[in-house]
């Protein structure tokens, strides 16, 4: 009797717990929908006025010009994409190499301190990164290429790379940590050296985790605002070289939102919406590929 009662109690407790967890999960998932619907509402006046076409056909972005207003957003999307890819391209090799070193070569003390430093790096405000980039990275670029403005795609890529480096490193480290010891021992048993074990066993096993880390940092980089606005130069153009200034979508929103009047504001909401959709495509593509990979290996 008593035992069945306590079972019922624990069962109902379980149900409550499950309900609470489900609710919280729904909140964090629903938040995205809430934000997207907010963006759509804000962007609606521009969509309704049929400005969306001009978004992709206009060549320049000069919403404030009385004589020739233009609303081309393509150059800014390209800017966002390029600076993000550059940052991920710079941060991924460094982050993965650092994670491998700390997982397989470094003494535990060093590993622990490195992790603390990286966690600290995550907490550094974006505006500090941006200011540091403007006062340190930009003058270096000017010295390297004296004919250029300095604030550029390259400056943005370097600053963003530093900002996402801890994400790449920490997720890679966690993924490597999760590779079963037995697999590593088996590799050693087969007579593989450390380097070969890392290359042929640990890294392939951790591939999915590393990919997730790269994706997370990519999403972080494409949405970053405060740092890029300070170092990218903010000229809406498709750059010819790394030294040309670019203007990511987020910079435009940050620079103009507080100063925009009604119709201009709707356009900025539109730009934000396009960027979110852009990121959604990335995430969707990644999960599609993972699904394909999973079903591929799952059958074997």
């Amino acid at each position: 009797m008593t035992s069945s009662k306590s079972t019922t109690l624990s069962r109902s407790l379980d149900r409550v717990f499950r309900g609470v967890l489900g609710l919280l999960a729904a909140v964090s998932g629903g938040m995205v929908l809430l934000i997207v619907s907010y963006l759509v509402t804000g962007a609606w006046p521009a969509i309704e006025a049929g400005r969306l076409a001009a978004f992709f056909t206009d060549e320049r972005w000069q919403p404030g010009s009385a004589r020739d207003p233009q609303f081309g957003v393509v150059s800014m999307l390209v800017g966002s994409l390029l600076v993000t890819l550059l940052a991920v391209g710079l941060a991924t090799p460094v982050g993965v190499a650092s994670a491998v070193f700390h997982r397989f070569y470094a003494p535990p003390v060093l590993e622990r301190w490195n992790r603390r430093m990286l966690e600290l790096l995550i907490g550094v405000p974006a505006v500090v990164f941006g200011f540091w980039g403007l006062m340190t990275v930009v003058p270096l670029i000017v010295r390297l290429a004296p004919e250029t403005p300095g604030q550029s795609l390259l400056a943005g890529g370097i600053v963003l790379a530093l900002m996402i480096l801890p994400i790449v490193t920490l997720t890679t480290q966690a993924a490597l940590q999760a590779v079963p010891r037995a697999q590593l021992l088996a590799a050693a048993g087969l007579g593989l050296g450390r380097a070969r074990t890392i290359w042929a066993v640990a890294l392939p096993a951790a591939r999915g985790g590393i990919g997730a880390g790269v994706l997370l940092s990519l999403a972080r980089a494409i949405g970053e605002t405060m740092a890029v606005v300070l170092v990218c130069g903010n000229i809406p153009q498709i750059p010819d070289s790394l030294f040309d200034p670019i203007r990511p979508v987020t910079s435009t929103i940050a620079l103009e939102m507080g100063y925009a009047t009604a119709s201009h504001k709707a356009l900025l909401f539109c730009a934000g919406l396009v960027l979110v959709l852009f990121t959604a495509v990335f995430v969707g593509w990644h999960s599609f590929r993972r699904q394909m990979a999973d079903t591929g290996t799952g059958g074997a």
Partner: protein
Amino acid sequence: MGNDFSMNSVFSFAVSRKYWVLLGGFSLSLASCSKREAGVETITLTGSSTVAPLVADAAKRYEESHPAVRIEVQSGGSSRGLADAGSGVADLGMVSRALTLEEAKTLKAHRIAADGVCVILHKDNPVAELNRQQLIDIYTKKAVNWSTVGGADAPIVVANKAEGRSTLEVFLHFLGLDNADVKADVVVGENLHVINSVVSNPNTVGYVSIGTAASEAKNGTPIKLVITEGITPSMETVADGTFPITRPLNVVEDAQTSAAAAAFLQFLTSPAIHDLVEKHYFVPVP
């Protein structure tokens, strides 16, 4: 197998950050709640980031003598000041330019100070003077090397302000240019960002509020204020009206201003804040 684990750690990392953000937002809203005491009247001002620091200082002084009044000052540009004052989101708006005829139909401007917009260069740039035509040539990329305006053989890096800034409007009005004519190398938002751009690349030319430029130059930032049309930018030349690029710093009200806001407005236009105006390197108006 390893993938699941790492995905979890990625997720928990994201969640913990979200948690702190939520907590931060929560404590902020708590803080703003505690401000709403009984019998305290709140006056809100939004608008020009040039005017905001001055008004914030004046508000502090006003609150000391009026304990029943709380004044909130938010910057966000002149356009926002005009929009918020007109829509009632804010009691008063801060606008760092003259109103257009259209704007003056619904809003009334009160001048609390005057300011100038001056061209700045790096201290090491040998150029000391630029006239209006030279500035037009520079900002439309007809002049692309400092040697063509009496400087060293180096490229001119043009810094322009972002859309909506009143410094942009005042400067372009002086040059008689539309923003679409301007060919810039760098577009920035704040006065300090212009100054830092000049510091980080000595080939840069930019323009900022004389107030900001003068205080930064005085604090040792390596910039100089450029003589324009033969006139040295300074508080004196703005005050006597000889400096060619000037603007009024306004506080605007619509027809439904509360008594408390009107009283604060009275204070802002009185000589009681002239010392604060000068402290911010602006010019008091009689």
